[in-house]
């Protein structure tokens, strides 16, 4: 009898994506514990991770992190394939689609804050589009639209500022210990 063995080679990229996705999932869970005045209005802290990954490792990695975040977040919050899960997936898809275009904006003029705000608007837009098509009559959503849009603007700006602060901080991977000068 021969023993079959399946080997799945794991690359350094896979490990990095897994680590970053775990970070995003952690932020999603922490955020789910925060009380919110309006259901659906959340800071979207996991988007900080997605945006950082986009800027440092490219769009593919960001899409992986975002997808894993939605899937694992759904599993851990016990709402896998529930309406909330699909709304989250629709928002993540819309925001990734917009980021695929927006990341080609000239970097000299448009920083992380622009990307973050645009992604936040796309996120809310995707969620509301699905909600309008599937869950609620559109007339009921109209009154809530400005609330969601304002939340996207505020939290998008804050998250973008956090991302630009994190990017400006020295990268721990590349940090070198200073040579000791012995007199």
């Amino acid at each position, binding site marked *: 009898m021969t023993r079959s063995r399946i080997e799945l080679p794991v690359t350094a990229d896979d490990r990095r994506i897994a680590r970053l996705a775990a970070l995003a999932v952690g932020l999603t869970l922490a955020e789910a514990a925060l009380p919110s005045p309006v259901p659906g209005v959340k800071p979207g802290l996991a988007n900080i991770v997605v945006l950082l990954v986009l800027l440092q490792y490219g769009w593919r990695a960001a899409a992986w992190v975002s997808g894993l975040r939605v899937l694992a977040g759904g599993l851990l919050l016990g709402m896998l394939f529930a309406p909330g899960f699909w709304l989250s997936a629709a928002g993540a898809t819309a925001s990734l689609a917009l980021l695929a275009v927006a990341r080609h904006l000239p970097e000299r*003029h*448009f*920083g992380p*804050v*622009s990307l973050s*705000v645009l992604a936040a608007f796309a996120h809310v837009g995707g969620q509301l589009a699905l909600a309008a098509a599937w869950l609620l009559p559109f007339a009921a959503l109209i009154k809530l639209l*400005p609330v969601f849009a304002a939340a996207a603007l505020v939290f998008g700006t804050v998250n973008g500022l956090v991302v630009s602060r994190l990017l400006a901080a020295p990268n721990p991977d590349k940090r070198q210990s200073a040579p000791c000068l012995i007199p």
Partner: protein
Amino acid sequence: MLRAGDWSVLAGGAAVVAGLAWQAWFAPNDAADTAIIRAGGAIVRTVALAQPQTVTVPGPLGVTRIEIAAGRARVQADPSPRQLCVKQGWLARAGEAALCLPNQVSLELTGRRAAHDTLAY
């Protein structure tokens, strides 16, 4: 930290929020709240579109029945030969009207703000 383009994105976002808020909360809405029922050119009843009820109006050919519901109204039955006003169905927006000319009865909706003289489709 914020670049020139970022400010324009933020300004655009604020404009979107303001536009949506105006649209959702402050723009004049054309929902009807009152039905005016006329017979022979004179107003016979003015009914608020709050309580569901049926109003009967006599005319030269017979009785026209008008049904009032929450936020809308229609001519339910009319003795006119071609039934045009009945076929119009439910009216819900300010300015909409259903005219039953042979029986000289009309139903017209008005709202908080009369945006149009009349609406027809």
